[in-house]
């Protein structure tokens, strides 16, 4: 089992000391996380690591998962899409079903807590039936809600307003709510399969298995085949680069199975890549963490040419591996990449092509950017910072109304 001290060589013993001092004051508090899945997705990934660590630090932390039928998850998927701005229609019967499934879960839950952190909309309704089971209720929204569908948001807002506080990943996602809103940036776990250090031999094994030869510089984009990730734009950029500099492009990712446009985008990508032997498109299963790790470490330049992005953890992962990243100037990518310092921000395939060429011709600049990028992630986007934020939040929750708490 990974322990808090395993992170000391990565973040420094002083950071571990800080966490322990913060946690000491919250010793034996009961802290419950609730979400809707034990596996798959970034939330489950972080919780699976954060919950044992919080327990090691002395907080009695548990992780509850609500159960639902396919109809329930259809409704919550519609919530998700609507919060991201899509037009969706939900009937009163569907909303009733959402509420009923939450009530059923509430009947089965036996926990009592000092703090409960409810992740995303799926279990949000629980507060209506379980309010007295915890002293502090906090809603954690992991979704890009910068422009939510108004009807759905009005419905959810009425529920979310009952919480004592809410947490968003970016300032632009914050809403008009009657309680304190906090910002907690997403994070990556440097010891996870996707991010842990791996040997050159392990990297070679993965590349051999995937049939990738390292005879030219590798340019990589890891993302779902989804129009907002603009894989076709990346291919356009690559074709422009190839006129001047020899290199290879790898597009790796899963198909967006919950996106009706997924197969169409994938077909477009295959068509755009046709006849170009130096482009490899890899359709990877969702648990191909080791492969993604190896690909990112093997790449010379990593691209994330999104046209819309919540936070962009693939950028964080690439930066952590000391790679220069060229990212679309949108969402959380702007927060992570400082032009010319920790990477390049681009607005078009032409811009992307230009920056790829720039970095291919200036490997020393690429290395410097990668070094700065890794340090930036070390300071701001690792799981230890996420845990520190949780502990700070719980401390603040115990002292409502105080802006500065001296312990």
């Amino acid at each position, binding site marked *: 089992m990974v322990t808090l001290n395993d992170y000391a060589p990565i973040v420094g013993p*002083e*950071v571990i*000391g*800080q966490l322990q*001092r*913060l946690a000491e*004051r919250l010793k034996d508090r009961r802290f419950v996380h609730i979400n809707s899945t034990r596996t798959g997705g970034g939330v489950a990934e972080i919780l699976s690591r954060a919950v044992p660590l919080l327990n090691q630090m002395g907080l009695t932390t548990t992780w509850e998962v609500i159960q639902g039928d396919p109809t329930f998850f259809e409704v919550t998927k519609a919530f998700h899409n609507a919060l991201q701005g899509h037009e969706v229609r939900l009937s009163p019967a569907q909303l009733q079903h959402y509420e009923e499934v939450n009530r059923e879960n509430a009947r089965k839950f036996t926990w009592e807590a000092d703090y409960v952190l409810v992740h995303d909309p799926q279990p949000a309704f629980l507060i209506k039936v379980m309010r007295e089971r915890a002293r502090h209720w906090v809603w954690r929204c992991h979704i890009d809600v910068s422009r939510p569908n108004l009807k759905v948001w009005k419905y959810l807002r009425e529920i979310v307003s009952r919480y004592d506080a809410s947490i*968003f990943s*970016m*300032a*632009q*996602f*914050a*809403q*008009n*709510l009657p309680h*304190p*809103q*906090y*910002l907690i*940036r997403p994070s990556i776990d440097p010891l996870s399969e996707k991010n842990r250090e791996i040997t050159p031999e392990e990297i070679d094994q993965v590349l051999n298995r995937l049939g990738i030869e390292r005879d030219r510089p590798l340019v990589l984009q890891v993302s779902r085949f989804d129009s907002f990730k603009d894989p076709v734009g990346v291919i356009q950029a690559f074709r422009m680069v190839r006129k001047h500099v020899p290199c290879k492009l790898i597009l790796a990712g899963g198909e967006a199975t919950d996106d009706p446009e997924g197969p169409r985008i994938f077909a477009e990508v295959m068509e755009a890549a046709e006849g170009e032997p130096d482009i490899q498109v890899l359709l990877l299963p969702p648990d191909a963490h080791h492969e993604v790790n190896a690909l990112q470490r093997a790449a010379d330049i990593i691209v994330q040419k999104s046209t819309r992005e919540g936070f962009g953890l693939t950028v964080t992962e690439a930066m952590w591996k000391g790679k220069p990243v060229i990212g679309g*100037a*949108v*969402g959380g990518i*702007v*927060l992570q990449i*400082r032009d010319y*310092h*920790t990477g390049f921000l681009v607005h078009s395939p032409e811009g992307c092509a230009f920056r790829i060429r720039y970095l291919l011709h200036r490997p020393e600049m690429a290395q410097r950017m990668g070094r*700065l990028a890794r*340090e*930036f992630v070390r*300071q*701001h986007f690792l799981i230890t910072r996420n845990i*520190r*934020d949780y*502990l*700070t*939040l719980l*401390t*603040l929750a115990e002292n409502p109304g*105080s*802006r*500065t*708490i*001296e*312990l």
Partner: protein
Amino acid sequence: MPVERAVAFDYDLPAKDPFWFRECFLMTMPLGRKAVNLRELLQTLKEVDTEVLHYHLLQSRLAVTQPVVEYPNDFALWAATALQDVKLAEKLSSFDPLEYEDLEQVRQAMVDILEDYLWDLPNVPWARPGFEFHFCMASMVVIRAEIPASTLREFCHALGKVGLDSVYYHFFEARRRHGSRQVDDFSFWIENNFGLPELVQAIRDIDLYFYTLKEVRDTLLQLILEHLGEICGYPE
């Protein structure tokens, strides 16, 4: 490196009161309000809690510390990157909130700059889509780091080890606590325990607004080295 000003000083002279380093943990609190153009920025700054100004002018350097200080506050950075108005970014970069007695004065000074600037413009500058200004403030938890320093040697050693949040707390936030833009916790402690007026003045003369927190720490350690002539245990 030998320094001319170095004087013989007993690094192990015990202080009357040990220095207790504090750690501070900032939680950013977005308001859910944004400005899409310069006029909206101005209007909102007139309305919001002054803590919002405090956050965007000073505290935000603790939230996401950039590797370099290109623009020293969020408003200047926004003018440059979102409005793409470098002239305004220059004006806002030169604005030093520590020159004012309180945050109400800071607000008035910011409002004056923006009103003057807008007055002469034919059009209101708009932010690029996706680059709107999102207003925030912050809450803070402060705890004792359990790293006391009883001598200047211990102080130097600890300063090299504590987190940058601690540097922020003792060097930036301290000025509000002391009610003086001149006085930070470090120089206050040195003055009260060891005298050393030249060193105290040199610390108070640091042009802190243009330094990253790491640079502030390095500068402090360098000043102590210059004035007292010993490396004082700070790792190279």
